[in-house]
């Protein structure tokens, strides 16, 4: 299984509302992170297996970008942490087909569950990434799933640290210890989302620097940065615009400690892009490039 790692630089997370932006501002990003799920519709066939109806317009755009910039895949539908009825070999096979078509530099997924069984051949999808308990038996479950993904998809596989707004008591492992153990056990890398970390640290009152200390930073292949806002006493990982200063500071602090970093991606939800305009996006990508250059150029 290939674990090659590309050094890609400044990444942009693709959203449908950015289809003109990615064509008109190629110079602003070195690689594009795509959520494959937004380019297809899942349907259940008569045999109960998942079918994927791909959007031809989306494929044309991806083909265009792939001819000019590397792509990485960030899936949202794997539901790795579902105890039953969510994780689907059909879905993984679809990702493997896309890997053969687009040669993603790596594939990532969230350390969470979103799907549950719901009637014969159906599932329920909550549309929100719910964290799994950081316990030994969850580690076992995930290790098996990660092995299946790595076996099927010929690309380095990364797991993303989750954002969570509630505290699950009596967990056997801390989040960084769980991530570290899972990486050691499976050979998967880490997509360290600094905005998720900032959000969790702020909402739950812990030091993000202590969290970073507890990780094995050699596992980090990709970083995410994003923006958010306050709502009723909580800070939300809303991907709603400019990245806040504490996240830029975390980025500056962690960058020199990541020997295997492949790229840093700025995330903004599609709904916000038309409201905020392209200047903010260009500004964040420029600033990110400046930070990377100060730390020795493309990672």
């Amino acid at each position, binding site marked *: 299984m290939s674990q090659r790692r590309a050094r890609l630089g400044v990444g942009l997370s693709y959203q449908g509302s950015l289809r003109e932006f990615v064509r008109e501002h190629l110079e602003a990003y070195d690689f594009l992170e795509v959520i494959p799920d937004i380019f297809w519709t899942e349907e259940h066939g008569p045999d109960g297996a998942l079918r994927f109806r791909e959007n031809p*317009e989306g494929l*044309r755009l991806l083909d265009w970008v792939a001819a000019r910039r590397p792509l990485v895949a960030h899936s949202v539908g794997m539901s790795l942490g579902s105890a039953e009825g969510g994780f689907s070999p059909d879905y993984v096979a679809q990702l493997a087909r896309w890997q053969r078509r687009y040669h993603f530099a790596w594939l990532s997924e969230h350390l969470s569950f979103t799907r549950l069984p719901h009637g014969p051949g159906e*599932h329920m*999808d909550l*549309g929100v990434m*719910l964290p799994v*308990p950081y316990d030994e038996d969850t580690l076992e479950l995930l290790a098996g799933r990660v092995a299946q993904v790595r076996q099927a998809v010929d690309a380095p596989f990364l797991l993303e640290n989750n954002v969570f707004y*509630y505290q699950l*008591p009596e967990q056997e492992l801390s989040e960084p210890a769980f991530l570290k153990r899972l990486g050691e056990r499976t050979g998967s890398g880490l997509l360290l989302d600094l905005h998720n970390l900032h959000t969790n640290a702020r909402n739950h009152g812990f030091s993000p620097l202590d969290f970073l200390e507890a990780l094995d930073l050699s596992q980090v292949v990709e970083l995410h940065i994003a923006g958010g806002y306050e709502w009723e006493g909580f800070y*939300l990982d809303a991907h709603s615009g400019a990245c806040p200063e504490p996240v830029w500071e975390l980025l500056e602090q962690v960058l020199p400690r990541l020997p295997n970093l492949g790229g840093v991606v700025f995330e903004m939800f599609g709904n916000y892009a038309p409201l905020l305009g392209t200047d903010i996006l260009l500004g964040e990508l420029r600033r990110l490039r400046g930070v990377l250059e100060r730390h020795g150029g493309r990672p």
Partner: protein
Amino acid sequence: MSLAGFQRALSALVMSPALRAEMAALPEQELPARFVGLELTERERRRLHALARDAGMKVTTLLHRANRLSMLTNTLPRTSEAMAHPKLQPLVQRYWREHPPTSVMYVREARRFAGFLLGLLRSGELVHPPLAELLEAELALLELGKSGLAMPAAPEVPPEGAALEQARPRLGPWCHVLPFRMEPRMLLRSGGAITLPENLPDEERYLLLTSVSPGQVVPSGLEVMRGRVLRASTGEHSVAWLRAELGCPSSLFLELAREGLLLLGPAQ
């Protein structure tokens, strides 16, 4: 596996603030009736009780609901706006209650919601002609936009004379025509906030949706006879039959073909 039961219970708590309140009011050793039958460890029971009292659960519920809502506001924006009317809003709640989220696929969820509403409209349980026309139009607009089809830059050269009379016209697959008695501009996202009329005028009006480039669909009004011709052009009948039936000249078929709306050549 008890994790499965725990995830089912956690998901139910995320989706229902009322269930959280019910559970928070129970003593630690009890569970809501809905969770009876779920295999749970003692630690998972304690976790669920803690979650029912955790203020962070309301944020998770907010995100869950915002995601569900955004699937509809992004795909059926004008219908979603119309559903905010106090008389219609309970139907959205009913839909969410009766149809748990099965997918984060926007188009699939839009079709599912549209199917729910159309079922009510067709059965007569909901009588609302303006909503019915808006929903049908917006669904057609969505499907055409996702089809990847676009009107060709150079329309086919139509046959003339006897060949025209025998041709069986078909609507270009990049178009859709449907009855629509409101202002077509209301379908545009930039058309401003909408309030649906109580009733529709008792007259014949048609809406033309044209995919001018992949993903870009333009709505426009249609003169009545053009609408009738386009609606009747299913490839089943000849131009001669249709013009006798509709009372229109052959030149109208030529005109529509030259505009790229009708196909008069042999079906591919």
